């Protein structure tokens, strides 16, 4: 009965791997179709004339694209995120590295950081408008604030948690302070920093939508609020929401790719 289990087993695992691969694509596709169907059914059965079904949303997206608004709004939102995020990296990484390395400075700065960190970036909207007026600068400032703290804290922890053994080894080989930073501290902290960068980009994308509802008159957040205010165009509201979701998802996938790329190259398999 158990004459040749190994070939049977390998066949079994082989076919299971194939179904598995198919499942990965098929099941989410089915779930997506089911979701769209349920959405359409709910809209038709409830007889609402305010909330759009998937088809109406698709037509709304097409309308936006034809008017030439779609590309412009996406570009504006991405530009603001890019600028605020870049500023946050430029400030957060050096400052985090300094605070992670210098224990006294960290003790001094920590209460301020811990106090500012839990304040929602949205609470800063009035302050941003006072400081920068209504416009791009205010939104960029808000995104800067929102992504600064994840980057700062991750870099701080990354540098602080560098293995003492690695530092000792670096010193033993006669590295200067700069060489020690470049060749031991930076690579040692990188996995932590990359995770912080991914979280920060996610937060930045959340915040740009909210900021655009108030401080500017372009971008996807503006589209959501404008479509509602100017004629209750809920098809456009939902279209904008879906776009925001898709772009957010793509940004996260991109960052995960970067993280894994580094992870693979530098051998950090876990975490």
């Amino acid at each position, binding site marked *: 009965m158990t004459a040749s289990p190994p070939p049977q087993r390998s066949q079994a695992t082989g076919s299971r791997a194939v179904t598995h691969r198919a499942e990965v694509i098929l099941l989410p596709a089915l779930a997506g179709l089911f979701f769209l169907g349920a959405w359409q059914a709910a809209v038709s059965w409830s007889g609402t004339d305010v909330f759009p079904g998937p088809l109406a949303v698709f037509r709304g997206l097409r309308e936006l694209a034809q008017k030439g608004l779609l590309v412009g709004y996406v570009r504006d939102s991405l530009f603001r995120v890019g600028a605020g995020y870049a500023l946050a990296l430029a400030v957060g990484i050096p400052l985090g590295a300094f605070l992670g390395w210098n224990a006294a400075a960290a003790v001094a700065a920590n209460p301020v950081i811990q106090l500012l960190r839990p304040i929602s970036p949205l609470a800063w909207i009035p302050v941003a408008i006072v400081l920068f007026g209504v416009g791009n600068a205010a939104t960029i400032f808000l995104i800067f604030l929102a992504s600064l703290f994840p980057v700062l804290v991750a870099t701080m922890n990354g540098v602080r948690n560098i293995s003492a053994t*690695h530092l000792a*080894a670096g010193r*033993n*080989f*006669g590295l200067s302070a700069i*060489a020690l930073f470049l060749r031991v501290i930076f*690579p*040692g902290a990188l996995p932590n920093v990359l995770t912080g960068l991914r979280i920060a980009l996610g937060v930045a994308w959340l915040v740009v939508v909210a900021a655009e509802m108030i401080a500017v008159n372009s971008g996807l957040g503006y589209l959501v609020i404008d479509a509602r205010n100017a004629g209750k165009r809920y098809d456009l509201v939902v279209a904008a929401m879906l776009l925001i979701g898709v772009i957010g998802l793509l940004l996260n996938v991109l960052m995960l790719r970067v993280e894994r790329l580094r992870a693979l190259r*530098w*051998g950090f398999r876990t975490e």
Partner: protein
Amino acid sequence: MKAAPAPAPGRVKVEIRGLAMTFGGDGRDVRVLEDIDLDVGDGELVCVLGPSGCGKSTLLNIVGGFLAPTAGAVRIDGEEVRGPDPRRIFVFQERGVFPWLTVEGNIGFGLSKLPPGQRAERIAHYVRLVGLTGFERAYPQELSGGMKQRVEVARALAVNPDVLYLDEPFGALDSITRLVMRAELLRIWEAEKKTILFVTHDIEESVQLADRVVVLSARPGRVQRIVTIDLPHPRDLSSRRYLELRDSIFEEIGLAHKI
């Protein structure tokens, strides 16, 4: 009465005089080392043996320049040790390997000042010496504990230091790998003629490797006895003399060699 420091054979390389170390501060000082006098000869392999917590690792860290002693001094070639120095490399348990560098990158870590061709040659030589041919591009995560330990040893040897400090280097390895690594270390030591200061809590290990075994007492650690292992390499681990020496150290530490 204090025994005079046992003379090291040949020229003295490392000279430890009146060394004491006290940790603490907030009123609860812990004396870790007291009155350590020791000479290590040029090219000698000395094992520092003691129960855990006796301060043997602290002693090695002071000699390596990572800690400043409370009293006394360490001189190497007559020059006082004031910090870590690339002429003397500390080999940690395999934790010291940089996970973000390949085997090649780790072994070449201390060679950045060499021209690329010479650097590559030196790396290739030490990859061969520690038996890692074929793993040059592998990352530490892909290696076993023993292989990582070889990378550390190769990285240390590659900068051509006079002295190697090994802090329980094989402590994290399984017993078979540990035996293999001891043989490898002796082979490398004979090929490269380095002075080696080796800290361990393993009595058998010390008798297998050392020219002399320095037995430290429990905390505060003092030199309790220095045993010269007058056996040529390769050592027969069942010879009468080996067993005599081993048992005398077991007794010295206060252990009956029975379970």
